[in-house]
């Protein structure tokens, strides 16, 4: 009773317009209404699971015929494979190829999660800091450990730019160190911010659609931003993957 009256008051406060652009990012349990502990199946679980199914459909089921002349599905799978493979090869060189499955995993997860997030009413897992931070930190730690493992202490020379004049080198080294440790921050916030911003803006325009006079403009704006979001979904996955390759290249070849 009390909550109903509260809800009515809540709406009337905003004079007919209802803006809840951030509600779409709320994590909810799939079953019941209890507290969310680390193992609770939530909408995160659901949409990550759907991303896994999408990847299996895209890369496994579509290639089950192993046709020499590929069909539509198999062409997409081969295109995705070739795209990421060439990216890894171009950026990291031949010795980076053995890390291709890891980068492919990240790329396929992000691109599928981003596109699934574009389904109206869905939950965008990649718009969450917790998700992108885990991936960015995993990349950062892996690359750093790999760098020290492959090159020992001489990996530090990554920060000591021998091409620069000697007096400048300490300054550059400081800048390099700072930029190196900022990497996981920019790496994760870039993806999360892009995904969150687009979805929130769509929700804001959707809120304006309640006013009849503004509704057509609102619908047009939503369509335009949706189109932009399709582009962003792909580009952000690509950017995340290619930055991972660039960081990996630093670990493999630290001597510029």
């Amino acid at each position, binding site marked *: 009773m*009390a*909550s109903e009256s*509260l*809800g009515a*008051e*809540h709406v009337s406060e905003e004079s007919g317009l209802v803006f*809840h652009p*951030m*509600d779409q*990012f*709320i*994590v909810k349990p799939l079953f019941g209404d209890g507290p*969310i*502990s*680390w*193992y*609770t199946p*939530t909408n*995160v*679980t659901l949409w*990550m*699971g759907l*991303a*896994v199914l999408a*990847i*299996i459909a895209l*890369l*496994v089921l579509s*290639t089950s015929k*192993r*046709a*020499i002349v*590929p069909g539509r599905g*198999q062409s997409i*799978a*081969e295109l995705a*494979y*070739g795209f990421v493979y060439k990216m890894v090869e171009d950026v990291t060189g031949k010795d980076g190829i053995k890390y*291709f*499955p*890891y980068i*492919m*995993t*990240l790329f*396929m*997860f992000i691109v599928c999660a981003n596109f699934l997030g574009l389904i109206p009413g869905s939950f965008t*897992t990649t*718009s*969450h*800091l*917790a*998700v992108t931070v*885990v*991936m960015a930190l995993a990349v950062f730690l892996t690359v750093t450990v790999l760098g020290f493992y492959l090159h020992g202490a001489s990996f530090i020379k990554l920060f000591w730019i021998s091409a620069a004049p000697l007096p400048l080198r300490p300054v550059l080294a400081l800048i390099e160190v700072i930029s190196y440790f900022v990497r996981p921050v920019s790496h994760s916030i870039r993806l*999360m911010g892009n995904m*969150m911003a687009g979805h929130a803006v769509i929700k804001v325009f959707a809120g304006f659609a309640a006013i009849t006079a503004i509704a057509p403009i609102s619908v047009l704006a939503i369509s335009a931003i949706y189109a932009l979001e399709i582009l962003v979904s792909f580009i952000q996955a690509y950017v995340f993957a290619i930055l991972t390759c660039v960081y990996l290249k630093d670990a493999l070849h630290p001597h510029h």
Partner: protein
Amino acid sequence: MATETTAQHVDPLALEEAGMCVDAHGGAIGMPQLCFDWFPNQMFWLVVTLVVIFLVLSRVALPRIAAILAERQGTITNDIAAAEDLKAKAVAAEAAYNQALADARTEAQAIVAEAKAEIQADLDVAIQKADAEIAAKSAESEKAIAEIRAGALDSVKAVASDTAAELVSVLGGKADSDAVNAAVSDRLKG
């Protein structure tokens, strides 16, 4: 009841500071992305998801696609090699055909020349033979004509002599055959 009515007037910022992520209506307070209560859940499921994707990709999808691409590359290479082989064969066949054509042409020319020469020889022989025959025949004819002419001259002499003798006798003279003959011969010469 009392707590619910107080919650209604609580500032959202205060709720956020209190560590709450969702207000009483289930709406978001601030950015849900910064709700640390949900972090373990998201991280756990993300790790599960990434591990599953990695296993699926590295065990099934990527080796399979790599095999398909390698197989296609092999097929294409083989097909190109086969096509080049066939092309070389076609070129060889064309050369052989042209050679055969040239041979046939020269042979045909030789045959034509031979036939022409043979015909010419036959023709020459036939013409020679015909010429000889024609010459013989014309000589024979000339001889016959000469004979006939000679015969006709004699006959004219005889007829003239007879006619002259008859004329003389009809005129009442006495025809001396030697005189008549002499007179006729004399006239015929003149």
